[in-house]
């Protein structure tokens, strides 16, 4: 298979390593070192996609990040496919498989082509606003067609097989771009002793030096590059990052870099990290991002074969690919002559050079003349003929102000048109931090404006294009940045080391400010002159937007979709502004600028997710007894980040059967619960008791050492936000327990009040949640189990309800608490967590004769609900006071100092008698379990919208009671006990239930106090 456009030698490719790849199911060959774009050009592939609106065939235009057309779907499987990488930045690897993203279903015969052509007329600028908004209900239908035609690419449908990760860095000087400016800045900064990181998006460092014709100190640029990289690589303070795109520049000199570590090696990386996200915090940032060449806007400038002049040079010099047979070059400047000279050097024909200027006597112009290349000054290419490839161009004379063409046009046969309208500094990153770019007439481009960041710019980014000047600029910029960053601790270095090599600079004549090439016809009737290829935005479209009153460039952008593609207007935005300026009779700076935002080029989600995927997506927290639960086949429930046993199914059981078994075993004999996840806070200090008085609603002054008390906490608004049992260890020490999910919030709450309001109270808080493993044995036989493994006296007389004792359990130092969340006789055994599993197994062994039954959170929920015990966050929602919960008994009446929440209860709204209050509900059908969240109404037949008076907060079937029951909040519910309410359900049926006390089981509390 012949690569028809590959020249015999030259380029930075490895001709010994042929790589086979497929594009739209056709097989081609390229070489190692190729990009996908250079390989396609080498094979003479002209059409790589179809345009969005008009479905016109499109070819490769650039050799860099600006590429609007060669946007592919790369990858052979649903797991590895990547939408929209630019072929110009995709390194070729063996067996690469890719497809056009545009051009559904086929780039060469495009069904959308017909639609597009009709659609084109029907899709004027502002199409979305004009069409899709009316009627709005049709948007969903429009969207399906538009999405399909739009070629936005497809997301992978299967999990990514590759690994990604992130790396944090801190450095003195972060340099973005490793062209001549960046490399020289790196040299001088590193020589000054700074910690330097230099990143470049290309596979090789060197930037424009990689295809320059200029000699440095009489030698090829490569010699200087090699010497420089070798010096930097040997410096342990320098990190070199090739294939690394700086995609974002954020506040405080925080830089995001996407390093593609193995994208160039193949589709899947089985061994290492495919992409790495570097997060850099830099003291100083040097932007050396260079400049992008601007195309000119002329008729049919999107026909495949129309390219940027610099891209033509790059393909020839760097990849040994001449992307055509006969070249026509249109330029406003001397620099672009290089493309014609390179083309000529490659042995192919240059049809003519069309120079829009009246004359030039620059060195390259002279050289072109000497070679006998036909140069036409004061002319422009006004139109291109051809559809899937350039066939010829129409050249016409420009008037003096270059806003009109004169006479008639002459046709020249060629298959490639290179154009250059000058260079635009790559200001994207400096824009990210909010810096407004500033227009400079002398370089016809925007440069970074004022910034609040510790930022420096050098080289092409500030319009310095002469190589000697660029190197000099880089050296001094690096030295200054290093000095700023290393104030006081840098090296005493010798500036004399930073020598700019001797370079014979070419003389250049001034370039011309020209963006939009006029045509004989007005723009609206001229052949289409594309400004933004990806969104098919034409000069005519922009002029129309201006005529319709959209004059601010931000409005023009939104109206025409200029700059809205995946290329974010890199290629077209400046030209779009120029067209707007021209049509409004303003200057470009008067027209305004657009600000670029991150990402500079798209970054895969894989890189952004890094290693935080699958089991590392969110930490799972485990108790000391987790392995036991796993061995027992427990089902788990997520409570915060904790994995708590939900229930312990036995073989063949349904969940409901497990719950019934667990509930009955606990009520009738003994059950065991892993309660380690409850928050525990060790409170110490002589004012601990007073602190509790202020933070809890109930009083703590009388709680004696060895005793425990249930408490409720409210926020300032009087609403309950956490609850738990707090025990008095000694007069200066209490152990507070909190809900599992509330633990960190409660600790922060205590610290907040202590540190900001009551710093005079002598009290310290320490979390001891993880220190204790907690197991609750509950049920009439729990004392018998405990007695087998402790010598402590745990009789009701020696160890009454709501007390705690230190004891040894199963040979382990423990604290036993007689508190109960089930309403049964219960003992909560706490041991140091490293002994948790040992103790748990000892309790299980001791309980065997009583059929001790492990139960999970669901049975715990049922048993507590039977007793009317609330769960914060389930039965409360941040709008519930203790009074609403019918818990006036937990509200202190005589505390000396006020306490949190108290004052808010006197608010009128909190004293309404029709507040939603916690009650029990008994469904009329004793087997029907009300859905949690079901809305409650007082009247059955009311028309929708019905008057909703509350909702179900907890609902279960009780095996112990033999019927279903629920907790609910109902307006004025406490005084409505015995009345019926109705629950209209989602399926259209309505269920009746009776309001009752929230305590269903053992209302006198006799079972827990034995």
């Amino acid at each position, binding site marked *: 298979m012949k690569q028809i456009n590959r020249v015999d030698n030259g380029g930075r490719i490895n001709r010994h390593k042929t790589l086979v790849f497929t594009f739209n199911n056709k097989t081609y060959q390229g070489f190692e070192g190729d990009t996908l774009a250079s390989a396609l050009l080498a094979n003479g592939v002209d059409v790589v996609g179809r345009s969005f609106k008009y479905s016109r065939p499109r070819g490769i235009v650039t050799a860099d990040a600006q590429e609007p057309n060669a946007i592919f779907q790369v990858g052979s499987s649903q797991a590895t496919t990547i939408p929209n990488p630019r072929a110009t930045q995709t390194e070729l690897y063996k067996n690469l498989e890719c497809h056009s993203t545009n051009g559904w279903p086929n780039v060469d015969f495009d069904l959308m082509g017909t639609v597009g052509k009709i659609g084109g007329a029907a899709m004027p600028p502002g199409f979305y606003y004009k069409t899709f908004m009316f009627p709005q209900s049709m948007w969903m239908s429009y969207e399906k067609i538009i999405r399909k035609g739009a070629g936005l690419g497809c997301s992978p449908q299967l999990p990514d097989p590759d690994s990604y990760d992130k790396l944090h860095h801190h450095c003195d000087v972060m340099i973005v771009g490793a062209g001549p400016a960046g490399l020289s800045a790196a040299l001088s900064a590193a020589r000054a002793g700074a910690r330097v990181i230099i990143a470049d998006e290309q596979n090789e460092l060197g930037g424009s030096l990689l295809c320059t014709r200029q000699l440095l100190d009489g030698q090829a640029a490569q010699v200087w590059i090699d010497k420089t990289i070798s010096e930097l690589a040997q410096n342990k303070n320098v990190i070199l990052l090739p294939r690394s795109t700086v995609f974002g520049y954020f506040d405080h000199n925080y830089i995001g870099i996407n390093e593609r570590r193995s994208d160039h090696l193949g589709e899947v990386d089985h061994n290492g990290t495919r992409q790495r996200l570097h997060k850099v915090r830099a003291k100083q940032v040097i932007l050396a991002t260079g400049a992008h060449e601007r195309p000119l806007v002329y008729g049919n400038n999107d026909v495949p074969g129309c390219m940027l002049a610099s891209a033509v040079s790059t393909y020839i010099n760097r990849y040994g690919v001449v992307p055509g047979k006969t070249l026509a070059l249109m330029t406003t400047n001397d620099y672009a002559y290089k493309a014609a000279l390179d083309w000529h050097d490659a042995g192919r024909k240059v049809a003519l050079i069309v120079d829009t200027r009246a004359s030039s006597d620059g060195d390259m112009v002279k050289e072109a003349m000497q070679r006998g290349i036909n140069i036409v000054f004061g002319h422009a290419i006004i139109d291109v003929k051809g559809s899937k490839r350039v066939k010829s161009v129409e050249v016409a004379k420009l008037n003096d102000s270059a806003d009109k063409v004169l006479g008639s046009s002459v046709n020249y046969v060629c298959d490639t048109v290179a154009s250059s309208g000058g260079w635009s500094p790559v200001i994207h990153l400096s824009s990210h931090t909010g810096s407004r770019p500033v227009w400079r007439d002398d370089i016809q481009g925007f440069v970074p404006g004022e910034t609040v960041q510790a930022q420096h710019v050098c080289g092409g980014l500030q319009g310095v294009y002469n190589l000697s000047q660029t190197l000099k600029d880089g050296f001094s910029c690096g030295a200054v940045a290093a000095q700023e960053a290393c104030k006081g601790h840098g090296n005493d270095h010798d500036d004399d080391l930073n020598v700019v090599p001797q370079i014979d600079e070419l003389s250049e004549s001034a370039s011309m400010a020209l963006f939009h090439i006029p045509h004989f016809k007005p723009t609206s009737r001229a052949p289409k002159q594309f400004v933004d290829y990806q969104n098919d935005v034409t000069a005519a479209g922009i002029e129309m937007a201006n005529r319709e009153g959209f004059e601010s460039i931000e409005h023009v952008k939104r109206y025409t979709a200029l700059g809205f593609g995946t290329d974010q207007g890199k290629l077209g935005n400046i030209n779009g502004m120029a067209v707007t300026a021209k049509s409004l009779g303003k200057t470009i700076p008067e027209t305004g600028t657009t600000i670029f935002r991150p990402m500079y080029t798209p970054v895969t989600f894989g890189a952004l997710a890094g290693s935080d995927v699958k089991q590392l997506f969110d930490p799972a927290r485990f108790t000391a007894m987790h392995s036991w639960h796993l061995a027992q086949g427990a089902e788990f429930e997520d409570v915060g980040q904790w994995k708590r046993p939900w229930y312990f199914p036995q073989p063949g059981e349904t969940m409901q059967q497990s719950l019934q078994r667990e509930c009955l075993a606990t009520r009738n004999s003994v059950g065991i619960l892993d309660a380690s996840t409850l928050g525990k806070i060790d409170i110490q200090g002589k004012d601990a008791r007073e602190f509790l008085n202020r933070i809890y609603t109930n009083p703590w002054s009388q709680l004696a050492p060895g005793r425990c008390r249930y408490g409720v906490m409210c926020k300032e608004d009087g609403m309950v936000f956490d609850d738990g049992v707090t025990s008095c260890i000694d007069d200066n020490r209490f152990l507070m327990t909190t809900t599992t999910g509330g633990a960190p919030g409660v600790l922060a709450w205590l610290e907040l009040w202590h540190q900001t309001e009551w710093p005079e109270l002598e009290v310290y808080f320490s979390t001891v949640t993880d*220190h204790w493993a907690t197991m609750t044995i509950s049920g009439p036989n729990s004392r018998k189990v405990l007695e087998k493994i402790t010598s402590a006296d745990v009789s009701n007389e020696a160890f009454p309800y709501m007390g705690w004792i230190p004891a040894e359990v199963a040979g382990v130092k423990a604290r036993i608490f007689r508190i109960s969340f089930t309403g049964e006789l219960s003992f909560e055994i706490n041991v140091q967590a490293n*002994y948790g599993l040992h103790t748990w197994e000892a309790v299980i062994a001791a309980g065997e004769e009583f059929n001790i039954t492990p139960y999970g959170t669901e049975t715990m929920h049922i048993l507590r609900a039977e007793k009317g015990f609330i769960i914060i966050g389930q039965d409360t929602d941040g709008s519930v006071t203790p009074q609403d919960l019918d818990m006036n008994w937990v509200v202190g009446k005589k505390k000396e100092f006020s306490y949190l929440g108290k004052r808010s209860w006197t608010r009128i709204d909190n004293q309404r008698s029709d507040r939603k209050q916690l009650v029990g509900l008994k469904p009329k059908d004793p087997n029907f379990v009300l859905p949690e969240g079901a809305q409650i109404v007082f009247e059955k037949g009311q028309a929708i919208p019905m008057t909703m008076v509350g909702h179900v907060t907890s609902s279960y079937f009780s095996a112990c009671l033999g019927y279903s029951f629920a907790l609910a909040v109902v307006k004025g519910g406490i005084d409505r006990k015995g009345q019926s309410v109705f629950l209209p359900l989602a399926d259209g049926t309505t269920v009746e239930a009776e309001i009752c006390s929230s305590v269903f089981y053992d209302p006198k509390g006799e079972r827990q106090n034995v």
Partner: protein
Amino acid sequence: MSNSARVESPLEHADFAGLAALKINGGVILREAKLLGHLNLRGNANDPDFLKGVKSALDLDLPLAPCSSAQNANTTIMWLSPDEWLVIVDGVTEAAIEGKLRQSLRGHFAVSDISGAQTMLEISGKDCLQLLQKSIGYDLHLDSFPINKVIGTALAKSSAHIRRTGEYNFQLIIRRSFADYIWLWLQQSSKEYGLSVTL
């Protein structure tokens, strides 16, 4: 506690003994310094009696500079915040040391035994810095993170106190309930360097 009581670190299930037996030659070396005594100490650093009391109980001056640490043969003290220190002592001695502290200290202070709440991982090896670069946002350069410095920081999606004990040696104090997550994280993040576990 009786000798029959079985004690297990939060990473018992990781089977470090089995992994150590593999004798992998990795760029990252990990060891669990397990079952040590961990005491959380709170007090007023401006109170000379408090400083004296600590010194007499631990035979070690309380480190007062932010992020500093102090160490002698049996005890390490890490500064956690202006009024909070972590005291690490040999396993099973923590109750006795807590008692000593309570005896020597007067006034307002707090001591909490948190030996069950956390464990210590020791990380070393030529690639341990890269492993930490993946895990924490702190600057690991010796100028900003010198030997004996202690930092409290986010480690992946959990947290840790990290003390540097050598150019390539770090102690990580991690919470029990997050230990498995961090162990998974460290395995994933050291994959490319090779991870060798030692005892």
